């Protein structure tokens, strides 16, 4: 299947199955409603085959170019069928499993994620470890055929709903920095795990604190080798800035169209509007090139930080524009459509914080792309 065929076939299928795929809620919905909708859409698209294209056959996929995944996410998000943030977590977690899990584990687990039977989370950040990932302290010690995990994670998206977690732990000495980190695949119903959702400013409690108290994890749930966790994390991060980012860019483009429809007369400054349209076009052009590089088998690396800076800049500019033009909605409106504009405006404030802050992306660009050396 090539992209043109896939696009035409998917567009027809989405047109024919609109009613059964449509969300039951208005506006953005609660997190629970969004997750139920996501599971429904994933199940239908998996069973019809669409969700399986672009993934390898050994994890339940049908093979084919990763461009097919990029287009599927674009089509689903621009039809308002899925919330792009939670949809695209698959794009980060599944490649990690394919790359590092023992093959039987990947074969057993990845289809559950693709079909929407399970929700997974990613346990990286800690209270003392935000941008400086190599300082992580959540410990795992070897006890025969199992690891015993103790410590805390934070900003763990969807942990309260997750069945599994890709978890980074320290297995080396406290001084071992990035060399002593190991990645584990943890069942979230293991005894000793406590999850506390965090109320956020945009009204969606998607982030959690996760506490581990001597949690037993079988050693066959190690992703990669002991001490290879840094490589797992570094391989995973560019995925956050490739397909997932294409989906988000498509979502922003879609919201821009909705902003133009909803904005009252004379509420949009032509210069600011024009610039936003151009920023989104530049993001899309850049991300498109990244999708094609990935599809050609190129290994993605620090150059994807450019994509992330473009995304965060465009996202904040779009919602700044929306906040000004739709002030009535964002400040006073309580109907579902207004509440969605408010929530997304507030969430856009985090675009320069999550997934590597704006400052970290610029540090990566300076060191890795411009060769400016260390900043110390």
């Amino acid at each position, binding site marked *: 299947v090539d*992209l043109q065929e896939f*696009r035409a076939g998917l567009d027809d299928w989405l047109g024919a199955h609109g009613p059964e795929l449509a969300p039951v809620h208005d506006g953005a919905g609660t997190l629970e409603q969004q997750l139920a909708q996501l599971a429904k859409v994933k199940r239908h698209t998996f069973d019809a085959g669409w969700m399986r294209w672009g993934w390898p056959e050994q994890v339940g996929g049908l093979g084919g170019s990763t*461009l097919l995944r*990029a*287009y599927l996410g*674009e089509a689903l998000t621009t039809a308002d069928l899925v919330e792009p943030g939670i949809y695209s977590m698959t794009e980060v977690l599944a490649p990690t499993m394919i790359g590092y899990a023992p093959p039987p584990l990947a074969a057993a687990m990845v289809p559950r994620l693709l079909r929407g039977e399970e929700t997974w989370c990613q346990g990286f950040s800690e209270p003392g470890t935000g941008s400086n990932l190599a300082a992580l302290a959540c410990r795992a010690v070897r006890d025969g055929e199992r690891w015993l995990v103790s410590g805390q994670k934070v900003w763990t998206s969807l942990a309260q709903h997750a069945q599994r977690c890709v978890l980074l732990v320290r297995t080396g000495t406290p001084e071992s920095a990035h060399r002593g980190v190991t990645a584990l695949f943890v069942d979230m119903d293991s005894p000793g795990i406590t999850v506390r959702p965090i109320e956020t400013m945009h009204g969606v409690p998607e982030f959690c604190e996760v506490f581990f108290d001597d949690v037993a994890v079988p050693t066959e749930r190690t992703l990669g080798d002991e001490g290879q966790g840094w490589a797992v994390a570094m391989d995973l991060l560019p995925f956050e800035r490739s397909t997932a980012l*294409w989906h988000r860019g*498509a979502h922003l*483009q879609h919201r*821009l*169209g909705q902003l*133009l429809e909803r904005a009252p007369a*004379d509420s*949009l*400054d*032509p*210069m*600011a*509007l*024009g*610039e936003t*349209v*151009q*920023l*989104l*076009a*530049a*993001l*899309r*052009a*850049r991300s*498109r*090139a990244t*999708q094609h590089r990935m599809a050609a088998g190129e290994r993605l690396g620090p150059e994807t930080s*450019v994509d992330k*800076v*473009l995304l965060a*800049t465009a996202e904040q500019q779009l919602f700044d524009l929306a906040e000004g033009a739709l002030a009535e909605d964002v400040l006073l409106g309580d109907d579902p459509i207004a509440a969605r504009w408010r929530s997304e405006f507030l969430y856009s404030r985090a675009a320069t914080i999550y997934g590597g802050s704006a*400052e970290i*992306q*610029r*540090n990566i*660009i*300076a*060191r890795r*792309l*411009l*060769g*400016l*050396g*260390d*900043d*110390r």
Partner: protein
Amino acid sequence: MDGTEHRLFEDAVRRAVDAHAGDPAALDGALAELGWADALAVDPRVAISILFERQGAANATSSAIGHVLGAGLGARGAGPTAGEEESASPRGYVLPALGTWDPPGSQGDDSFVVRALGTATSTAPESIVVPTRVADGSVAICTVPRRGLTLVPVHGLDPGLDLVTAHMDADSIGDGSISIGDWPAVVGLARMALGHELVGAAGAMLELARSHALEREQFGRPIAAFQAVRHRLADTLVAVEGARALLDAAWDDGGPDMVATAKAVAGRAARVAARHCQQVLAGMGFTTEHPLHRYVRRVLVLDELFGSARTLTTELGRRLVAGGPLPVPIPL
């Protein structure tokens, strides 16, 4: 062009531009010799992107934009001629006045008016091509004798461009000749060429600032170690890469909206580069002993040709506010 041809062509263009960066007439000669105009006819994307990006990077000028006008108008011959056409007398050309993309000439019932910008080289031949809006609204390629134009050399912000203003106020085109041309195609190709030249210049400024930041030490370490400096340069790279990606997308897409967006974003990226790199180069970049000032001057002028970032952006916004459709996003 296949891969090898492409590489050989790129090397040849690069050598020509670098060897004659300060001498437009010599660069024109070298481009004629390597067959750049033929490449333009065969593969405009390759010819334009390679030459203009390099021209921007080397702070060079040539009459190549004249060939681009000719290519867009469907007529070879604006600018210096090459190969078998060499015997024909070369024709010069003029561009729209600063900030505009209207054809530089306009013909009324009993008037022929030219408000144009050229360079010393482009207006040297005895016959000058003046794209002209004629009475029925279409655009014609007028060729007028040089002596009919009032040509005034411009020193201005960027003396290195050898700019010339060209004026004419006449009752009719007189001795000139006319044929019909495709003006929107000219505007599109010219914007692509200028976009590449702006991006090339922005990349060169970034490289100047980058090497300075690595060499210049203060407080016992290179200023490249200071985050305030690093982030300015990182922002410059993001701006340049965004513009580059849009130029590629515009070649793929080909529509006028995408081309205008690519030109506007390239102009803005070049201004971002000028601002950040000037700051990083500090006192050095403020002197005429350092090359930065030539790039700063150049990009401000290039941005204004065929519509500036500001004008094109406002025009796009106004059209949308008036209820016009959003430009169709480039497909995956």
